[in-house]
């Protein structure tokens, strides 16, 4: 498994990766004045700025949704971006190369933002990997996925009702290692695609047929009540702890047949 955990597949089915850190409301991130300070250190990599407004923080049951200013800094090739709100920052990409590279970029983004506005603390940290496993054929019966995906993940989707056969399904499994570390796996045979073409440009040729979704959301959430101070080094170290189970889940969810016939094939 250790060897698998470090292998980079030339035909990996990974379509989208995002890392998000949430923090207490930071008013300076809601002001236009702070924008140049945040964007300047990131401008070379993400020169395109797409401002907008995003709902919502509901304060009370009868309160109207709060509109928050948001900014998305987008790379020229539109395969990666930084999404900034007064309560969160997201680095996402459709052109993931490796975890060390992604981690280093996230560290650079965090430092730029923290240096500009001084983030107060960390509420939640999440790392998300979305894989669309596709075979040669665009029409794959559910049962046929057993050769490529762990049988346990396929069997649950075969539940048939008299006269009807399942054609698409999605399951959710929630894992927990301690009160603060969680992993949610969304999985199932689907048709079409999960990762769209916006706001980032989707990688590769879009195929319309069957795929098996493995969508892993590995996250840490504050469970102590007191706010953890923002510390970029701690955030990155925690990211490492989130990455390992996500990768292990992926490797446990696929078979050697998929590795040999699809993932290791040079395109």
């Amino acid at each position, binding site marked *: 498994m250790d060897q698998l955990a470090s292998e980079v597949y030339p035909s990996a089915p990974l379509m989208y990766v995002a890392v998000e850190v949430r923090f207490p409301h930071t008013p300076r991130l809601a002001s236009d004045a702070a924008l140049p300070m945040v964007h300047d250190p990131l401008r070379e990599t993400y020169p395109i700025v797409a401002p907008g407004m995003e709902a919502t923080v509901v304060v009370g049951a009868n309160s109207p949704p709060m509109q928050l200013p948001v900014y998305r800094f987008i790379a020229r090739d539109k395969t990666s971006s930084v999404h900034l709100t007064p309560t969160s920052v997201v680095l996402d990409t459709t052109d993931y190369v490796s975890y060390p590279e992604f981690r280093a970029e996230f560290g650079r983004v965090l430092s730029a933002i923290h240096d500009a506005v001084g983030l107060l603390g960390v509420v939640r940290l999440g790392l998300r990997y979305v894989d669309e496993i596709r075979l040669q054929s665009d029409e794959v019966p559910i049962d046929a996925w057993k050769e490529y995906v762990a049988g346990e993940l396929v069997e649950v989707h075969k539940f048939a009702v008299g006269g009807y056969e399942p054609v698409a399904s999605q399951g959710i499994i*929630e894992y927990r290692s301690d009160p603060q570390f969680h992993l949610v796996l969304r999985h199932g045979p689907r048709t079409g695609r*999960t*990762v769209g073409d916006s706001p980032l440009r989707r990688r590769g040729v879009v195929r319309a047929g069957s795929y098996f979704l493995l969508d892993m959301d590995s996250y840490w959430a504050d469970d102590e009540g007191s706010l953890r101070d923002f510390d970029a080094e701690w955030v990155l170290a925690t990211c490492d702890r989130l990455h390992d189970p996500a990768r292990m889940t992926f490797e446990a969810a696929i078979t050697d047949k998929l590795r040999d016939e699809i993932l290791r094939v040079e395109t």
Partner: protein
Amino acid sequence: MTVNTSPAPSFPSREDQPTAAHSVVETPPPALTAADLLPRTWELRWNAGRHHQEAIGLDRLVNEMTVLERAAQYEHLSTTTLLDELSTRWGLSWTNISRLVGVSVPAIRKWRQGEPSSPQNRSQLAQVVALLNTLDFHFMIEDPARWLEIPLASTPLTLIDAIAARRLDLVLDYAGGRVDLPERVLDRWIPAWRERYRDEFETFVAPDGHRGIRVR
């Protein structure tokens, strides 16, 4: 009975708001392009054409078998009885009976006077009776003998000539509506019929938009 109206526990239990993934959208499959649809179109066309041809072939076979099976029922009748049936019941002239069977009018006269016919000729007579019955009962053509005698597209040719030329298939196709115009019967039977049987008249569309007929 009490109903618990408290909110159901959320699932996943710890966190309702997953890690933001702005590119993750449940999108329908991308719209198919013409290039995607083309192979399927070809396949459907090919299959449709094949099934159409199979249906036509099967329908023709059924029609011909219907005539032959009826003919087998009439073969037990004598030649004289068969001639009476054709002449009296269906009103066919001796000339046309001779053309349908492929013998001379004097031969027909001899049979009427009691001279024996060959088994092949008796079978031919039975087939003509069977054909008229089939046209009447199967294809609902009233007075089928007169129908066979109608000139095709202002030519001297009739369906009796087609039968005499062993093109029973054309007659059955026309009777069943598979061939909708007498011109199309002739097109399939004698492709050069327009030159061979050129009419001194022609149809035309007048300036008022109505069709007319005039001397060529």
